[in-house]
Every structure is written in C-alpha cells, then in structure tokens.
C-alpha cells in the first residue's frame, strides 16, 4: 500500500460572451459639477468584480483618476438595459459599452475645456491626474473640476455620455452548424501534480502551474482572484462535488454542506500562474474575461494526472475514491506511467 505521484496537463480555449449575439449592454455616465463621475449600469457584480472593471475602463477612457469615478449598479430605474452577468460577457460587452459612454462624456468635457482655454478641443489631452492641457503645452491647462464647474454653471453643457455595445443576432445553419459565434477567445494550459493513495483511493492535488492568455488584463489582482478561486472550484469539480453521486440514479444526493463535499482551506494546493496578454481586437482595451474558464483545464489535468500516477482512467466525474479503487481492481493494481518534467 503506497502513494503514487503523477502529472497531467490540459490546454483549452474559451469563448467570450453569448455566442450568437443578440447581446447588448448599455451604460450611462455623468459628471457632478466638480468633475466626479458616476457610471450607471444594470450589470451585476456577483463577486467577479464588475463594478471595479467598469470603473477602471471608465476612468481610463475619460482620462481621469480612478477615484474620481464610481459605478452605480444595479438599479433598473437608473441603470440602462444589460443582458446580465453570464457567459463571460461582462468585461467584454459592458466594458465596451462603458468605453462608448465615456468617449461621449469625454468629448463634452474636452469641448468645455476648449471653450475655457480658447483652443481647439482636438488639441487637448488629459493627464489622468485630473487635468486637461494642450498637447505639448502642459502649462496651458485647466482642471477637470474647473471644467465641470464651467460646463454646469457657465456654459450650460452636460458632461455625460451614453453607450451601447451590441453583438447583433446571428443564425445557425441547421445542417452544418455554421454560425458566427464569439469573436474573442481566451486560452490556457495547466499542469497538475497529484498523489493517489492506492489503499484509500484518495487523490490529493500537490500543486498546479498554468499559463493563461486573457487578452488585456484590466486588473491583475482581480484576474488572480478569478484564477485562484476558479482553480479551487476545478479541483472541487474534479474530485469532490456532485448532487447525484450515482448519476443517473437520482438517489443518495446530498442536501447540505455536511453532505455536499468541497475542499476546505486545508485541502488547497500551491498554484503558480503566468499571464499572457494578446489583446482581443474587439475587447475593451483588448480585454477578454477570465471568470468562467478558470476551472476548465483543472478537471482534465487532474484526471490525466491520476492516470499518470496509477494507470487508471476515470471518465466519469467526480473522481471519487470508490472509482479509483474499482479502477485499480479492474486493472489488477497500480500501473504507473512515465514521469514528466521537474518540480512545479
């Protein structure tokens, strides 16, 4: 009776957004009289960070400090229509809608500043610190705050913008499946190391290492949140979770957290992530969206690592100790496969 180590890998891509279009997001942005901006959306933040993603995208496009922008979501009376937070669409679709709205608001902002500075708006740039100045002449400047005040109380201009981003509807050919699905795809490859106990059938994940290509990373800390949390969910899907352990037999299902198994804080494995950025041509600043795909490579990588460790293929998830032991019995014992590579 012993423990056997194995390594497996998997590589995947992931489509960004509802794949057949009909997929609109809208955004509204307006400024207070002192140049502080509110972005009104009906997008949903269910932890993935929608509020902060759109806040950074809005600040970048407006050319103002991020703390001068707050995102207000979701209130159907003030936030315009959005399809919702699913299908990895939030960053891409809503990010683009926010860019559109912010561009319009920025246009008015620069017009108002041009009027105050008596220059052409096309010659103005923002410094991202709250100032607007003539390109190449930083001394000919006005603050965003003074501009907003002038727009509101002197010029009678609304520093505001509205934006929509729509991937139009598209059809599917019934006979060939020809279609226009998503335009942006993210990519990943993940290597997992496991240890399998041939007596208990238990699988422990020893470590994981991955490379993710996600287009432009809007906020690296939040990308890390998604990838780390998602990898945990991947381990959980691969080894622990199901409400129907003997599917399709519907019986014996767990009813609560006592019976529904997930890895706890003591069951997590070291995880090393490397990020590649190939900007999406139609993404907000090239952004794609990592929130959904981050569990996907973990499942097959672990299954492949289990095979590498003991020679048992488990084709039905989750990979429970029972399935491992039955597989070992069917195989007549452990059949370790060749070792691959060095320490993670």
């Amino acid at each position, binding site marked *: 009776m012993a423990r056997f180590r194995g390594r497996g890998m998997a590589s995947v891509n992931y489509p960004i957004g509802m794949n057949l279009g009909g997929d609109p997001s809208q955004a509204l942005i307006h400024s207070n009289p002192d140049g502080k901006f509110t972005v009104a959306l009906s997008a949903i933040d269910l932890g*993935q960070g929608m509020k902060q993603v759109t806040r950074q995208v809005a600040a970048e496009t407006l050319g103002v400090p991020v703390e001068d922008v707050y995102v207000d979501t979701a209130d159907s009376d003030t936030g315009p229509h959005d399809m919702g937070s699913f299908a990895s669409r939030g960053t891409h679709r809503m990010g683009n809608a926010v860019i559109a709205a912010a561009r319009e608001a920025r246009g008015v902002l620069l017009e108002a500043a041009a009027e105050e500075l008596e220059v052409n708006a096309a010659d103005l740039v923002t410094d991202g610190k709250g100032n607007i100045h003539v390109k190449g002449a930083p001394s000919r400047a006005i603050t965003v705050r003074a501009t907003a005040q002038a727009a509101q109380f002197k010029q009678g201009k609304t520093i505001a913008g509205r934006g929509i981003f729509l991937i139009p509807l598209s059809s599917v050919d019934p006979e060939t499946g020809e279609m226009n699905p998503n335009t942006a795809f993210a990519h990943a490859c993940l290597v997992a190391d496991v240890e399998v106990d041939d007596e208990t059938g238990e699988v422990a994940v020893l470590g994981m290492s991955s490379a993710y290509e996600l287009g432009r990373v809007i906020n690296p800390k939040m990308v890390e*949140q998604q990838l*780390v949390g998602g*990898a945990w969910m991947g381990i959980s899907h691969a080894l622990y979770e199901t409400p129907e352990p003997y599917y399709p037999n519907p019986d014996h299902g767990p009813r609560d957290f006592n019976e529904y198994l997930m890895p706890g804080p003591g069951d*997590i494995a070291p995880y090393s992530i490397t990020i590649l950025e190939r900007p999406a041509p139609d993404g907000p600043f090239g952004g794609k969206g990592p929130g959904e795909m981050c569990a996907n490579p973990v499942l097959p990588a672990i299954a492949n690592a289990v095979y590498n460790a003991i020679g048992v293929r488990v084709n039905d998830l989750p990979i429970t100790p029972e399935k491992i032991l039955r597989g070992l019995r069917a195989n007549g014992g452990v059949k370790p496969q060749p070792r691959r590579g060095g320490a993670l």
Partner: protein
Amino acid sequence: MAKVPVQFRLNGSDRAAFADPADNLLTVLRRGLNDFGPKYGCGQGTCGTCSVLIDGELRLACLTLAASCEGASIETVSGMADGPSLHPLQNAFMEHFAAQCGFCTPGMLTAAKALLDRNPNPGREDVIDAIAGNICRCTGYEPIIQAILAAARTLPAQRRS
C-alpha cells in the same frame, strides 16, 4: 406564540428586542435589530456566514436561541471597525483581495478575529483550523489565509503602541 423580551449589548450598545422563544439570534439580529452584517447561508451551522462573538466566544447565530443571549455581549462584523478606523483584519482582507462576492466575509472576519483574540501569533495551520467552519465558494481560501496571517503580523505592534 407570545414574544419574549431579550436584552443584550450589540457591538457595545444596549439593544432590546421581542423574539419568539424559538427565534434564533440570526433572525433577531437581522430582522429584529437591522444588523445585516451576519448572513444566512445554511441555517444549520455548516457554512459559518452567521458567525458572531458572544462574550468573546465564536458562535453560530443561526444555532443560538436569541433568548439565551439575555445580558450577553455580542459582536458582529458591523462593529468590528473602531469608528472610521478599520480593524487590522479588515485592512488585511482588503490588501490581499480576500473577498470576491463578499458574502462569507463577515463570518470569515469574525472567525479570524476570534482566532487572533486568543492567539495573536497563529501559524498557517492555526488559521486553517480557525476558518475550517466557514465556506467560501469564490476565493479558493488562499487569499483569506494570507490576509489573516498578515493581519496577525501587524497586531502585536498595534497592541504594543
């Protein structure tokens, strides 16, 4: 069923409510006293989102009869900050991006506070033990563990000052 009065200190202030004898503390805190810090996640003590401190001890509000809290001192996440100053744990959770949806965060912070209150120098295993009763579906736990360890490192210095 006739309601019974119950009085306790909540985050340092005297509070009173009328509760059904069968009401749990979570219901009374949330629906009776409008303290929405502790959350309902399972109602059976398995997820930890309703964690509170009762007389300094970590307790699950969903499994605690409200009437049994008469005269007790109850702390929830809502009272964790010292006025506008966040508790070191709250700062550490922010710095380590240790929350995504934020729903388990009140319970996590409360469990972590209970740990640091009794052990200001915990090791990684101590932290894991301390939050083992709290379920997080978003973060994969690692940022939370790191945040608690980091907060512990700032604590003794604060206590000395």
